[in-house]
């Protein structure tokens, strides 16, 4: 029997690459699927008032009507999400044709993913990074270089604790060590997140300036590179912290 073997050619939450055959479908988007007239309205054909599918090319920022910035008003985002939910939710298409029901279902699913991605600052940044760099791979997690030794040691302590009798003196001692480590790592995580927030602000400022000079482009690439490294470290530390918390809980 052939085993299941999914190959992540493309990540779900990330935009399609240029070789994607679906790109050829983009032409059809500007035409109403129902009356074939040109769609000028945002989500509905203005002529026959049929709901239109959200194009597969639409990124989540565009979908929710926000510019590609990393600091955004979460209240406004929620309000926009609720508004669009009222536009697309299948509850309101029960009496419509099957084609419209199908569009509503898939639009609502895209909307829900878009909101979930943009609501969380980390996921939002990871998504933007993928959009801007055209990278389709998940960001690989890696430990910050200066933490390498410390983390190796921590892994050993974790193993030792798992194998130990938690009620024994040794168990207590290991647990105390792990708790101290956990606090230190939590602090490190917060530090990484505050560095990220500063970088987010830098990105937004650069975008707002809208310059296209070569130095602006270099600055942009520098920010994206730094962001990738920080996100990668932050996820790594976060995973370790959760693992730690789960073990000593």
């Amino acid at each position, binding site marked *: 029997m052939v085993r299941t073997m*999914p190959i992540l050619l493309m990540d779900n939450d990330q935009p399609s690459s240029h070789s994607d055959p679906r790109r050829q479908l983009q032409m059809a988007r500007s035409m109403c699927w129902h009356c074939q007239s040109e769609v000028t309205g945002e989500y509905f054909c203005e002529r026959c008032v049929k709901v239109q599918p959200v194009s597969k090319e639409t990124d989540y920022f565009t979908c929710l009507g926000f510019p590609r910035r990393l600091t955004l008003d979460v209240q406004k985002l929620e309000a926009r999400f609720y508004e669009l939910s*009222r536009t697309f*939710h*299948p509850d309101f298409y*029960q009496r419509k044709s099957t084609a419209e029901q199908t569009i509503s*279902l898939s639009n609502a699913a*895209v909307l*829900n993913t878009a909101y*979930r991605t943009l609501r969380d600052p980390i996921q939002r940044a990871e998504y933007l990074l993928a959009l801007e760099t055209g990278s389709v791979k998940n960001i690989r997690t890696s430990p910050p270089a200066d933490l390498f030794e410390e983390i190796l040691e921590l892994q050993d302590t974790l193993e030792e604790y798992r194998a130990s009798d938690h009620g024994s003196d040794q168990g207590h001692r290991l647990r105390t060590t792990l708790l101290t480590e956990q606090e230190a790592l939590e602090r490190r995580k917060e530090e990484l997140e505050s560095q990220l927030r500063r970088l987010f602000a830098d990105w937004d400022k650069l975008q707002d300036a809208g310059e296209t000079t070569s130095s602006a482009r270099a600055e942009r690439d520098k920010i994206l590179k730094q962001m990738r490294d920080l996100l990668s470290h932050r996820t790594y530390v976060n995973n370790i912290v959760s693992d730690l918390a789960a073990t000593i809980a």
Partner: protein
Amino acid sequence: MARIVGIDLGTTNSLVAYMKDGQPCIIPDRHGRTMVPSVVAVTDNGLIVGDSAKEHLTRNPERTVYSVKRFMGKGLADVQNELAYFPYSLTETDGVIRIRLGQKSYSPPQISAMILKELKLRAEAYLGESITKAVITVPAYFNDSQRQATKDAGLIAGLEVLRIINEPTAASLAYGLQKNTQGTIAVYDFGGGTLDISILKLKDGIFEVLATNGDTHLGGDDVDRVLVDLFIAEIREREGIDLSGYPDHIQAVRLEAERAKIRLSDELKTDIAIELPEDKGCFTRELTRDQFESLATSVIERTLTPCRMAIKDAGLTTKDIDEVVLVGGSTRMPLVRQRVEALFGKPPHCHLNPDEVVALGAAVQADILSGGTTDMLLLDVTPLSLGIETMGGVMSSLIRRNTTIPASAKEMFTTYVDGQTGVDIHILQGERELVKDNRSLARFRLKVPPLPAGVPRIEVTFLIDANGILNVTATDMRTGQSQSIEVKPSYGLSDQEVERMIEDSFKFAAEDIGARKLIEARLDAESLFKTTDKSLAEAGHLVAREETEAIRTALSQLSTAKDGTDPRAIRGRMAELEQAAKHLNTVMLDDSLKKGLQGKKVSEVS
């Protein structure tokens, strides 16, 4: 658009509701009863459902099904450790439990369909129109198989199930409609067989579920069992009787345990009386609320873990919860209220009838779907993570739990052997790492054109719709062709089997209607018999002797007909009795009027 009713298909009781002038209302039966006990009995005269079936629990335990909801979407292995509690015999065919009743076997969706049909008939009789569309509620923590089984039950009952909606969120709709609440609420729903907890944010008519958790095998039934085990052990010790050979008596113990539990919600102590087999008298004991609570506390503690997990998943603490709403009959237990209050640090709301609020919410959702209510929208979540099996028996998660539905995920598949023509895909639901620890939902084989390894690119879309039910589609990315996928459910009826059951249900419908007519005729005859007998005793002296003789004859003939099985004969005898007693009734009415007028002046009368 045809009317859509809302149905609460409960473990212990079921209800049907509809929207009347912007307010949800429960549809009662002819006697004003709102709940249909979720009990189905196979009698010699056909199938009966509800209150009349409940009588058969002790009379006919092997052929009377209760708590069938516990078996929906399950295989026999899932319920192995509770088989001893059920007097009817359970087997398994094609991953679906079958319940043997008399000569026939029924799947849980078929039994549920009988309850749904009863509700459908009730609604049709009350509203005077044919009902073909419904919203049906399920526990929020129901997995895909259990939801699908519920949808199948609807189909078999002749209902188009327009939406499967989660019970706690349904309750929140009814609650929100009445209270116009804004803020964060927790709905604690503890029913007969299931526990759910949902955390919702209510804002401007949007009901957004933030997180949900639960246990589909934890309910009032489990509290009853603690008492059943105690009583059976005491009967063995004190009376030297092992009840395990007496399924009818075990049922009597279970029913007494349930009644005692209910009484102890209002009283501090209660007397237990259980009739023993073979005329060995009666087992009696006193049970205090304290004793009861010390027994029940372990079950109730188990309900708090899902609550804590839901709060955590919502990214909140108990301080962030503005209101706690109680749903389900089991929340009437004072101990439950105390524990919930202690956990959330605030007294829970219980001003809505916990038995009715879910059905009322289903009616609100039905009204949203039919376009009546337009300002409310429910955004629910999927309770369990969805994933597929990957190399090494590990589950790779595609849609995380508590993701807002509809939700979709795409996955690209290819081959790794030249000319390979298929890829087997195993879909799972659950939170554990390994495939074996999660719930298998379905398997299917993806068809791939024979090409060199790695060249085919098939994109599979997993879409969880607004019912929380999975739909799978696949597209060959090279040709843009989509392919239909035949999914083989791991724990469910195949489409063909559902189809056959729908046909069967039409075939048996005639039989069932016959049984129902007989039961109704008997009930009506009983009530006519009693009132006429009473009139005769009170006013027989006011009419001629021949008349009283004629009435007596008609009474005895009705009594004979009532024991027969022909509803038309019963109705005929009833008409004869009514005719014979007509004069007597008129005379009685005149007599009472006359008595009422005595001692009054003419001026007071007019």
